[in-house]
């Protein structure tokens, strides 16, 4: 067993670092200073060129900032947290100019340093679209939805058909409980990507986002179509592969879902992907493989990466692993980002710890969002607290939102409802 754990840790580390799926919330609105379709080989070469220049002339700001941008570009391709950290180190090593504020703020967003992102973007022109989108993302990340609403509304007035704004509208709608509007806005965003002639990398993002919103809304077939198109455009996109796996699972094709999830994990072995892979493996009766993936998540947890904290703690709590560590992570999340998903995480951890009354407090705050997994957990907690009717209502709400929202949990919800039926 020790050898198995060692191997799984080694697998994560030798894949090149730690990764965060969907690290950048949405594609940049401002196309200047970014490569439309970055060539990974050329990026690596240029990183080598400018790395050498920075080593030779460490005080030349232009070279540090250029190298920082290159690392940021590569991070956008790989989601490698190490690249984001290096970009932040380089971009923040000199006075932050208005030109550098936006890329630096985006790097902070990617590693979930939302307050740093807000502080950094203050240097940029206040009314620019780039500034406002970064502000939106930081507000969404921090759970400041009223502020996010104000900024998004302003952006929508400026650019009513802009995919990057519509997809932020979708996210805000989801987080504030309006799943229908979320799907509508995600579809609109996808529609406008064609007129905007966006590069494939951005198109993949919007297809994946639309797939995610359709999946959360229970429209697995539509989600599957979008996810398949996204993977067709870029099979090396780990986030798209994971969405495809989820959509395949939701349409009942667990074998294909397993294959897609394995591809996703080979690209982005982050806790969310590994947790899903563990669930799929379990659903297919392979508990040994499932446990191996959970062991890897436990190993990742020990590395204490803020950007992975939420997904790691949730994955561990959902599987009853390292609960004290998960609790500490959940408390940190709630302190820094008091939003419905932080309450969902806390509810899940407390539920796993058997602290059901405390869990209910957080579950009640979490179910303001239109995410069936959140409603499922809240239902279980209500049942543990002896609130049978409430529990069943919540489980039914989860299934109403999406009948096959999870390869294991959806079936569990149905069984519980059936067992408790009068």
């Amino acid at each position, binding site marked *: 067993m020790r050898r198995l754990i060692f191997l799984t840790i080694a697998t994560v580390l030798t894949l090149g670092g730690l990764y965060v799926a969907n690290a950048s919330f949405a594609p940049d609105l401002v196309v*200047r200073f970014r490569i439309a379709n970055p060539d990974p080989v*050329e990026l690596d070469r240029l990183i080598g060129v400018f790395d050498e220049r920075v080593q*030779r002339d460490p005080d030349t700001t232009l070279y540090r900032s250029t190298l920082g941008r290159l690392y940021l570009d590569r991070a956008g391709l790989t989601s490698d947290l190490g690249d984001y950290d290096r970009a932040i180190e380089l971009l923040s090593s*000199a*006075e932050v100019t208005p*030109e550098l504020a936006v890329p630096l703020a985006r790097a902070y967003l990617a590693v979930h340093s939302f307050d740093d992102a807000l502080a950094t973007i203050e240097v940029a022109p206040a009314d620019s679209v780039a500034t406002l989108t970064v502000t939106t993302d930081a507000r969404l990340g921090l759970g400041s939805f009223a502020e996010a609403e104000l900024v998004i509304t302003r952006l929508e007035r400026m650019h009513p058909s802009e995919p990057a704004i519509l997809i932020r509208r979708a996210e805000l709608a989801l987080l504030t409980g309006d799943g229908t509007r979320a799907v509508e806005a995600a579809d609109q965003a996808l529609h406008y990507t064609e007129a905007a*002639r966006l*590069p494939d990398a951005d198109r993949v993002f919007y297809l994946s986002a639309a797939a995610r919103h359709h999946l959360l809304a229970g429209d697995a077939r539509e989600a599957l179509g979008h996810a398949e198109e996204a993977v067709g455009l870029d099979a090396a996109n780990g986030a798209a592969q994971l969405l495809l796996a989820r959509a395949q699972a939701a349409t009942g094709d667990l074998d294909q879902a397993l294959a897609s999830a394995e591809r996703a994990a080979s690209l982005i072995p982050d806790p969310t992907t590994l947790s899903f892979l563990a669930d799929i493996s379990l659903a297919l009766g392979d508990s040994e493989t499932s446990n191996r993936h959970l062991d890897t998540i436990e190993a990742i947890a020990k590395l204490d990466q803020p950007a992975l904290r939420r997904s790691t703690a949730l994955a561990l709590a959902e599987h009853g692993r390292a609960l004290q560590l998960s609790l500490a992570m959940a408390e940190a999340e709630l302190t820094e980002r008091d939003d419905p998903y932080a309450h969902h995480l806390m509810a899940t951890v407390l539920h796993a710890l058997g602290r059901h009354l405390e869990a209910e407090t957080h579950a009640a705050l979490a179910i303001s969002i239109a995410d069936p997994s959140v409603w499922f957990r809240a239902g279980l907690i209500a049942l543990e607290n002896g609130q049978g009717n409430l529990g069943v209502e919540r489980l039914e709400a989860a299934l109403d939102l999406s009948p096959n929202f999870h390869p294991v949990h959806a079936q569990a919800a149905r069984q519980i409802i059936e067992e408790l039926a009068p």
Partner: protein
Amino acid sequence: MTKKPWVRPALVVGLILAMAAPIAGVGAADHLDSPAAGDLQTDINDLYAFESPVQGHTVLALTVAPAAGLIAGTDFADKGVAGYQIRVDRDGDTIEDLTYQFDFTTRDDGSQLVQVRMVEGRKATALNPRGRVVAVGTVGETLELRTGGKVFTGLRSDPFFFDLAAFSNVVEGGNLTDGRQFNDAARSDFFAELNTLAIVLEVPTSSLGGEIAVWATTTAPNEAGVWQQADRIGRPAINTVVNSSGAVVGADPGNKALFNASHPKDDAQFTSPAKDALRILSSLSAEGSYDEATLEALAGILLPDVLTYDTSQPASYLNGRALTDDVIDISLSIVTGGAITTDGIGTHTDYLAEFPYLGVPNE
């Protein structure tokens, strides 16, 4: 009294171009001067015109896509999304008599196909002229032109050379705090090891004419789907200088896009901004700004923005533009009144003695 000697105006422009260069991007001859162009693949870098080592032939070279692979991508924009043109005026009326149109198509395997058309006469003035197809082939390969000569399109080493880091500190002033100076111990060429997309024509000089004016354009549809001119260049960085909206020159922010969308024959509309820019920049000298007569004369030479070239003479920046012409050094000398004579950066060493003359891509 004119305080300054008559200067070679194109060189003044060469310096000023970089003053307006985006600090965090790549400021070069014309790099990133086209903010209206949503696609960096249509953003023009430089235009060169020089004599070929092949007797009786002339080379016209256009580079686009700033720092391809770093800022812009490494493929040309496809037909339907963009078009690329090199235009030649043979009779001095600033209206093109000959246009080469380059259209690209990306194949399923990711490689690109180029189609070159040659259009003469009135039709040459069209945004995307349709005329005789003179070459079709794969990007990255040298193709023979049916009208004589050859063409290359594809990724090459950027021939431009310049210490952008020092310039950003010294000339733009205050944006960087690293203390870099021109020709100091840390001098280095920002463009070394960077790539650009290039379109290189080598054609019989007789097909062009004797005293010609050359400029290049890119075209793309706007948001409404209407085709427009996305960028243009004659001499290096005229638009970047004349219409710099930065703190130093302070031109109308809308001027740059207007310039890029307009035809050189209408460049008189930019005379006033040109004089303003020259007045401000020449004030850097201890001798003070150019007087009105000099400003007027300089503006009259800078505009219209075309690269004039007497093909019977060797190319040297004012007369055409060779790959090795050091615009920056001479410009620094002029603008600083001799206080700064060089950025300490010499030409690249990867130029080729034979077609397509621009070095092989850095990899």
